[in-house]
């Protein structure tokens, strides 16, 4: 279920439209992009006690790390 209203994060050349959801008792974020690339689902997982952002399913790790960090930054500064 979606938990919060949709929010937008505007970067220099792209706008992310983000919704947060609880799926299987965990939190995921779905990101829509203004440049037309496919939506990305990201999740903050734990790797050796260190949190890291990952894409769900696997395969878009670079994007997950970059855009996940932007989400964390946005939520922290709200």
């Amino acid at each position: 279920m979606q938990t919060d209203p949709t929010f937008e994060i505007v970067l220099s050349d792209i706008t992310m439209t983000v919704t947060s959801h609880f799926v299987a008792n965990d939190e995921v974020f779905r990101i829509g992009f203004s440049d037309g690339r496919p939506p990305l689902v990201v999740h903050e997982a734990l790797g050796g006690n260190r949190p890291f952002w990952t894409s769900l399913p696997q395969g878009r790790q670079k994007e997950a790390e970059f855009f996940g960090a932007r989400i964390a930054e946005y939520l922290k500064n709200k």
Partner: protein
Amino acid sequence: MCYYNGQKVSRAEFIKLLQLEKAVKKYDFLNRAVHNGFAYAPIAVLKRDTDETNFDIVQMEWGFLPPYLKNREAVAKFRNGYKDEQGKWHIGYTTLNAKAENLFNNEKGNPSIYADAARKRRCLVLSTGFYEWRHVFPLNKKTGQPLKTSIKYPYYISVKDQEYFYMAGIWQEWTDKDTGETVQTVSVTTAEANPLMQQVHNSKKRMPTILNDDLAYEWMFGDLNDERITEIALSQFPAKQMDACTIVYISEKLTTQFRRKLTT
């Protein structure tokens, strides 16, 4: 240790991620707890199929867009208002709701942007319940007079013994002439509030047009004249069949970490 997306994770975390991956695949991202209209997100709508004998369940963008808007930039101006080159402010229009009284003529008496859709493209918006604010004006302790600013209390309104219900809607296809993107957009019609909704939505005293099964069928499939369309859109769902209760307002400012704590 295992690897997920090239990152070293514990076996337990790996299993959790695989389970989450599976759940995400099946997850319908329309399944949201709350639709905030001003996010203009997709909502579930029943509309007549091409044969006009049955209906399809489709997703539509909430917020009716007239076809003359050229692109998303024009949409943003239409919705939010804008200042022109001379510095004159043009107000924005909220088309999440369409007043039943103004489906064919707007408040100035001119033809309404909704008229064609009301005649040809009526639909039903599915809902399990909706939220509305009740405004309470506290009394000034010294003068005993109500303060000018109100405290807002959110209420959740639903229909008794019904998991979901129908709200009358009208839809319009809109094409972005820059990108060619076509979306179906929808507006929910509103009627005067019934006694329950007058107490809850005490600032505007309006409510969505909630339709029982018979009216819902007639709204979608009936060959209706303008008077009947207006009559149905103005119909008040009985207050005694509805429930309203106060709810706790959870701030958007909850952090990821705090939300995670809430679920563990």
